[in-house]
């Protein structure tokens, strides 16, 4: 069962109390029944975001977001398009460093260390915090070389083929590609390419994996395979997944954060992505504390 502390992950907000019970689609309730007992483990933050604000020039994309990402849990970021989910995710592994004009303020601590702190090498941050992108982006190299890329990069060259096989197995792709390791990865199907990208990220053994809508470009069967994979990976690696598919969040995530675009400054026209509510997925979907969350998860959004 959920502990009390788990239900108050969101830093205090003057959220409007939920009005009455929600009429939930029955399918979601069934999903929550099937949760593994692993959730009984205590929560341990891997990454803590505090008052994170990201601006692109004058435009605020993420406004004053504070949340914790917990070890061996799948955390979903949901919310309408443009609410800053991708931008926030990219502050975690400093990918926003590469975007001209992006300015990050606030603190992102990974195992207690500020990832933007002096003396922190973004290369090391990105090695520990892996990322999978919205569209599968394998290199135009062989399947093997794709997975070996990060290993070679970081000098993990002993037993290279063993490590590559291990990563492909963890990404549930080994059986499909073991006979074509030397073939160009672009010959794989979209779903296989995305699992290859997951294998490529897992190969360097990150302890946190960021996934930005990893299934949005895939067909339903490939999507199901990725979701199954996420449930398997949860015991080995901490996962943050951005999705705009609420069913997906309900199916794979232990914890869910809901973001929305809201007025940020005193100026009514200044709007940016704000964290509305963060808590156990089941609670967020069945007993949301905020009216806006309720509207979104019941499809009354917009």
């Amino acid at each position, binding site marked *: 069962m959920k502990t009390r502390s788990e239900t108050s992950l969101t830093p205090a907000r003057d959220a409007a109390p939920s009005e009455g019970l929600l009429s939930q689609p029955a399918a979601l309730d069934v999903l929550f029944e099937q949760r593994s007992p692993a959730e009984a483990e205590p929560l341990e933050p891997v990454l803590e975001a505090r008052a994170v604000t990201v601006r692109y020039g004058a435009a605020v994309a993420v406004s004053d977001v504070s949340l914790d990402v917990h070890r061996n849990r799948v955390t979903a970021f949901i919310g309408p398009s443009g609410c800053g989910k991708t931008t926030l995710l990219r502050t975690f592994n400093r*990918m926003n460093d590469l975007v001209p004009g992006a300015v990050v303020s606030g603190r992102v601590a990974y195992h207690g260390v500020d990832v933007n702190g002096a003396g922190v090498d973004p290369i090391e941050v*990105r090695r520990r915090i892996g990322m999978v*992108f919205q*569209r599968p*982006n394998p290199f135009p*190299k062989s399947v093997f070389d794709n997975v070996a890329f990060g290993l070679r990069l970081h000098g993990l060259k002993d037993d290279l083929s063993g490590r590559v096989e291990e990563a492909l197995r963890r990404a549930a792709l080994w059986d499909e590609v073991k006979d074509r390791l030397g073939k160009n990865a672009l010959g794989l199907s979209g779903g296989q390419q995305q699992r290859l990208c997951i294998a*490529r*990220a897992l190969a*360097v053994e990150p302890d946190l994996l960021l996934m930005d809508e990893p299934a949005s470009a895939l067909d339903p069967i490939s999507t199901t395979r990725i979701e199954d994979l996420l449930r398997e990976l949860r015991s080995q690696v901490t996962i943050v997944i951005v999705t705009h598919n609420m069913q997906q969040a309900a199916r794979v995530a232990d914890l869910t954060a809901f973001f929305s675009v809201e007025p940020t400054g005193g100026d009514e026209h200044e709007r940016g992505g704000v964290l509305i509510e963060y808590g156990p997925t089941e609670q967020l979907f069945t007993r949301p504390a905020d009216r806006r969350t309720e509207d979104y998860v019941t499809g009354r959004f917009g």
Partner: protein
Amino acid sequence: MTGREASPLSGGARLRRRRAASAGAELLSLLAAFVAVAVLVVVVVSIFLKGAGALSVHLFTRTPVPFGETGGGIEQALIGTAELVALATSIALPAGVLVAVYAHEFAPAGVARLVRLCLNVLAGVPTIVVGILVFTLMVKGSGQSGWAGALALSIIMVPLVARGSEEVLAVVPATLREASLALGATRARTVLRVVLPTAVGGIVTATILAVARVAGETAPLLFTSSIAATTVNTDPQRPLASVALSIFADSESPDPHAHQEAWAAAFVLLVFVLAISIGARLVASRARGGRLR
């Protein structure tokens, strides 16, 4: 309004006018394309006819013979041109690719624009000016050499290689760079391991086209490498002969045999340039096909 009584789908006078304009434009462009092809055919055929008498194996295996004699060749010029172009490419390929990589992958936007502007200006500098520049830098005092000629050619090649390379760097998907960086690669590693391997087909194409361009250059070699060399030489410290300058020298000669030899040499040069241009296209389409497969 016109055509009110016409059926709603028949268009009316305005559409008819537009269709006529479109047909006219199509005809004009067809004509222009035909003229371009026709000029090429006329040039190739007439050069072939004029040089046919001197086109023999001897052209490739012998050096020039004294005035009035027949059966000479331009072996020294073919070898010289091959060496000059090879040396020039070995300078211009790395330099051009580095400039492109700097401008496209590392430079701030303003600097990149400046670099691009400089490349465009350099590409437009008359080749005789390049020849004179290298002459004042390298030849005055120390004399002509293969190196000086190759340097002059490479100065002409650099902007061609750099601009062509930059075009292919621009079509390497940003998502590939992100994938590499997200795995903890530095920008330099990303360029070396991901960007350049992906762009290599286009870089090769740009380089081959630059080779085709300078293989026939005359002006940059006029003051820098030899115009009068009639013996085979492969030492770049000394002046190297070249096909383009042989054509020039032969056609200035009062000897009619030399004139024929000039036409034959021109034909050889033309066939070489056409062949490598077509080869470049093949490399380009193979690289594209290979990337999709």
